[in-house]
């Protein structure tokens, strides 16, 4: 356990020193959302109607951006071999790296989301649910994405391949994430949707580290 924290600390330190990855994801998120009022037109009721969907889709694409590098840099410089040869179970290594990835790219998205919701004139009733839903959804996306990131190691043009592999798997998160916010705005209970999002997260925690570790072992052979 102590060793898993070491790995997380190292990844966080690397992310802070280099900064670009997490900044890129959040800037992309903001830009993508800001493009919608320009494209769709400034009518407040249309924007308010699509706000939840736009924010979720943009968050989904933004979290894709940095996933490619989750294992790639460690793979390229040989660190991944040594991590696999460390006395830590590879599943735990994956989990530590995913947590660090989420803290540096998922959390900034959650922080930026309410500001963008204001920009899109979203009903204030949906704000809390939006934050909670993103709080449950972004770690799920990081976890599912880790499987894709492990599978593309060694492939050419891995980034494109990664989106093809992973985006379809994000659909349930998208559906229930948007539904939760829409329910809150429409005055219905958001709880069932949030419960399903929690279920997805728990399922991802239970399954994804094993799948990622298995495909990492494969890529190291």
């Amino acid at each position, binding site marked *: 356990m102590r*060793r898993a924290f*070491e*790995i997380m600390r*190292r990844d966080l*330190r*690397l992310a802070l*020193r*280099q900064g670009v990855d997490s900044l890129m994801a959040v800037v992309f998120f903001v830009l993508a959302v800001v493009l919608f009022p320009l494209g769709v037109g400034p009518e407040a009721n249309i924007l308010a109607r699509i706000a939840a969907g736009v924010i979720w889709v943009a968050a989904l694409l933004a979290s894709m951006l940095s996933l490619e590098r989750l294992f790639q840099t*460690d793979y*390229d*410089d*040989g*660190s991944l*071999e*040594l*991590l*696999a*040869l*460390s*006395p*830590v*179970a590879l599943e735990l290594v994956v989990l530590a790296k995913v947590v660090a990835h989420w803290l540096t790219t998922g959390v900034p998205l959650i922080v930026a989301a309410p500001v963008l919701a204001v920009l899109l004139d979203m009903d204030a009733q949906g704000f809390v649910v939006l934050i909670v839903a993103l709080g449950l959804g972004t770690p799920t996306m990081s976890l599912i994405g880790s499987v894709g990131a492990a599978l593309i190691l060694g492939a050419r043009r891995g980034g494109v391949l990664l989106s093809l592999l992973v985006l379809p798997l994000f659909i349930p998160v998208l559906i229930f994430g948007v539904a939760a916010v829409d329910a809150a705005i429409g005055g219905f209970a958001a709880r069932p949707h949030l419960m399903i999002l929690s279920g997805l997260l728990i399922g991802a925690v239970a399954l994804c580290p094993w799948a990622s570790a298995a495909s990492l072992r494969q890529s*190291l*052979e």
Partner: protein
Amino acid sequence: MALAPGTLFTGHDLTCIRGERLVFAGLDFAIGAGDAVLLVGANGSGKSSLLRLMAGLLRPAGGAVRWGGESIAIDPEAHNARLHYVGHLDPVKAALTVAENLAFWARLGNGSGVVTEALKTFDSASLSDVPGRFLSAGQKRRANLARLAASEATLWLLDEPTTALDAAATSCLMKAIARHRAGGGMVAISTHVELALDGARRLDLDTFARQPDPVEAAP
């Protein structure tokens, strides 16, 4: 098979297949406390593959690698805890200083994270605060090799460790290996250059290269 006392780390009838090509077959090895084994052979004879088999990164297509009689595949984490592996790449992060890089790997192993002594072993104390991005190939290699001294592990698996090293650093490495062996450690090194190791055994991988297929050889 009767083993000499002290022979802990053994390989039995190992077969290695890479990309549908048989690299070696019927390979046995035995490494005891204080032993050093030099892996020699032509390019592609499977030196690196054998080291990866020993580390558990590769699974053998046939045969088994055993530690104290038990296959290393049964408890890979326990095997990982007793080995140091130095491969072709130097995992030195550009954004971290040499000391930070080394401290991370040391704490991930059995070390304490105090790395000044380990850096001195390879005459690299002055590099301690230099970020990885400014290191030359040889300095990166030294920073990587310093892992050997920064945390305790019985088994050292070194894949061409002298690549990019100057004569002074090579002699530092030889001293470190000698000290490790004197303390009962084991070393397996693949190499193309002659290394000054007392009493090291040679394992020539070419001997185990693909034998001509009896069916193909028949007229």
